[in-house]
């Protein structure tokens, strides 16, 4: 049962990676995202970075609202999730992700480097409000 669920989740990630975001969206809902493990959510977000289509953005929304992701998941090239977002030039994604990494939690969980790099990136891109929220 669990095995098939994981397989299903991996299939979704693969669909997004291949650019079949519309199909992935049809098969995805809030609960499916909530059930995903943080490493999988990270990989899903990572797969979404190159895509800016409407279905891709809807998946993003689903993930940002319902998912819990791991900041310490690296891609094949060894980049952290936040580095992938920055490299992909996804200011919008960084701003949304930033809502979930406030100063205090970042410090407590050893993620201060992620926090600092995202604040610097957002300020560099003149995203004052998300940067301000992160600083609070």
């Amino acid at each position: 049962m669990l095995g098939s669920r994981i397989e299903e989740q991996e299939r979704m990630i693969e669909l997004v990676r291949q650019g079949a975001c519309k199909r992935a969206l049809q098969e995805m809902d809030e609960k499916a995202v909530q059930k995903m493990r943080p490493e999988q959510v990270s990989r899903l977000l990572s797969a979404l970075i190159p895509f800016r289509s409407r279905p891709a953005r809807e998946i993003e929304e689903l993930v940002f609202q319902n998912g819990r992701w791991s900041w310490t998941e690296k891609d094949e090239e060894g980049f952290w999730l936040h580095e992938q977002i920055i490299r992909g030039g996804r200011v919008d994604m960084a701003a949304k992700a930033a809502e979930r990494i406030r100063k205090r939690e970042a410090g407590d969980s050893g993620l201060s480097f992620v926090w600092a790099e995202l604040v610097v990136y957002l300020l560099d891109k003149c995203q004052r409000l998300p940067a301000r929220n992160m600083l609070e």
Partner: protein
Amino acid sequence: MDEEESCRVLESILAYQDLELLGIALKYTRNIPTELLQVPEDERENRFMRELLNLYVKYIDIQDDTKRLWRISLCCGAEVMAERLLKKTEDYQYLPQIAEGREEVFDLLLGVPARKVLDEVKKEVLYSALVSEHWKERLETLEQKGWTKSSRQRKGKIQFADESIRRLEKKKYASDRRGKLEQVADKERIRFVKAYGQE
């Protein structure tokens, strides 16, 4: 958050020139390293730096790089920081620049006991006041506060007239209207100083 990370965040906020964000960040960084402060290059940077130095004076360690802090404070006219530096370091070599600075900066001179300042420095202060925009009022104020009295000879007066005239006469002016106006103003200064020298 380690020091390097907080430095990077502060550096970005300073580049973004946002005092509110800086205020939030200072709640946990508690310090602005002097090396992050840049000498302002335009009016916007000038205003930002002045507000920053006046508002967050306590968060800057003045022992860090006093020379740099003096330079930045005088460049942007941050009177609160300049006052703190003056109190802590008693660096009287900066008094001439204070005499030439913004009105709020000039007022710092009034808190310095003139008798403690060397005659040579006083001469420079008087010359700087003379070349400032509000020179008449400034020289008058300085005279009232005893800046024209010699520290060496009691009842003696600082002889700054000849040297000031020489320096003013050496000045080069642009050939435009602004240069002409400046030249006229300097001639008035020379007349005033000559009268002072004959007193």
